[in-house]
């Protein structure tokens, strides 16, 4: 009697453990599957919105406009290192006289190293392949309140018109030099990572664009037109810089 009741107890223990595990796992799987698509859509939307922000374009709220912009104006390429590059053109209805849609700029997938982990961002570079448009951080593991402040809107926007090689200045010193940007107090390692990521993107930009232009005649034309157009324009806009020799 004693023996079999102990055995029964053991069998029940095992059975119970199994049953409750199966129960919990099923519920979790259910919840996961119900929300998985929504989570993925959210992530893609967030990434697309950030990309447009990096290109200093207005970010639409609704998904339809967003998708329309992406299908009309944004084209994806990959550079030699496997990183994504997007070309941004103006919308179809603008500038009917030229017939070709003007090149607005490029967005590079940037990767850097922060204090705690990797930083990923969209880096917007002007069509001249030299000056930045904006920066939109998509992923980081930095300390909230310190390094995580790179998410703040002012931080990315301050890069408009800046060019490499970049150096960081103390926060709120607002230098007018095109190669300086404001850091964040208490987040030195994070800012260093961002700086080095941006400098890498900027130094590789001309080469990367030349490489992808070779694979796409339309892009190659657009780049050529842009260069020709800007050579005849004294100051295409942004921070004043030294005059350069023609193309």
């Amino acid at each position, binding site marked *: 009697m004693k023996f079999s009741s102990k055995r029964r*107890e053991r069998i029940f*223990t095992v059975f*119970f*453990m199994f049953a409750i595990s199966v129960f919990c796992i099923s519920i979790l799987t259910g919840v996961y599957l119900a*929300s998985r698509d929504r*989570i993925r859509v*959210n992530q893609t939307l967030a990434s697309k919105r950030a990309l447009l922000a990096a290109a200093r374009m207005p970010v639409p709220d609704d998904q339809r406009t967003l998708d329309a912009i992406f299908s009309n104006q944004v084209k994806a390429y990959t550079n030699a290192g496997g990183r994504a590059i997007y070309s941004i053109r103006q919308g179809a209805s603008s500038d009917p006289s030229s017939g070709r849609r003007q090149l607005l700029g490029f967005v590079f997938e940037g990767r850097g190293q922060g204090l705690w982990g990797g930083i990923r961002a969209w880096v917007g570079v002007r069509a001249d392949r030299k000056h930045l448009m904006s920066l939109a951080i998509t992923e980081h593991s930095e300390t*909230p309140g310190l390094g*995580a402040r790179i998410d703040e809107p002012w931080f990315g926007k301050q890069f408009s018109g800046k060019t490499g090689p970049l150096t960081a200045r103390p926060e709120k010193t607002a230098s007018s030099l095109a190669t300086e940007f404001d850091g964040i107090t208490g987040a030195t390692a994070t800012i260093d990572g961002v700086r080095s990521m941006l400098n890498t993107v900027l130094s590789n930009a001309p080469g990367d664009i030349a490489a992808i232009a070779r694979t796409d005649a339309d892009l190659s034309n657009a780049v050529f037109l842009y260069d020709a157009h800007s050579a005849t324009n004294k100051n295409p806009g942004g921070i004043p810089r030294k005059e350069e020799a023609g193309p």
Partner: protein
Amino acid sequence: MTLAKPRMGRVIFDGLFANNPVFVQVLGICSTLAVTNVFENTLVMCIGLVFTTGLSNFSVSLLRSLIPGRIRMIVETLVIASWVIVFDIIIKATLPEISKALGAYVGLIITNCIVMGRAEAFALANKPLISMADGIANGLGYTWVLLAVAFVRELLGSGSIFGVRVLGEWWTNWNIMVMAPGGFFVLAILIWIVRGRMLRSKEGVR
């Protein structure tokens, strides 16, 4: 707590004040303190804790007569972990940015001593509904303490409350409040004030 059947009102009062997890039981100071440098993140974390403690107490209490003694802790852990995963999925779907900011700390609700502690101390011996109330009350007791810490840390460290800048340009941020030592000090001071009061009032009664 295990004398007569505990009454709902008493249970709630104890969880919030008399048997407060942080000041009296000294539990769960661990993980959540890390996110208290931003008020909004703390709020979401604490909601997660209240959610988890309440529901896991409820579940454990429902099963209390069935759970074999030997695997008691494993079953509790399994139940707690499941509820935490549910919460994690919910915030990933509805508040993706906060979920990213919280990072690994949501998962650490599982090892928060309060959740396991209440399951062991209360849920195993009481009915489901009142166990859930006890879980929620303890969770809320923990919440108000952490929100107080977070309020001070965000105000002094970033000059803002809930992301809205309230202190003007004249305020120099106390970076120490945003970094680790700030959390320890603020909580220590808060404990000092509250426990000091509690001890003095006990002596007054005597």
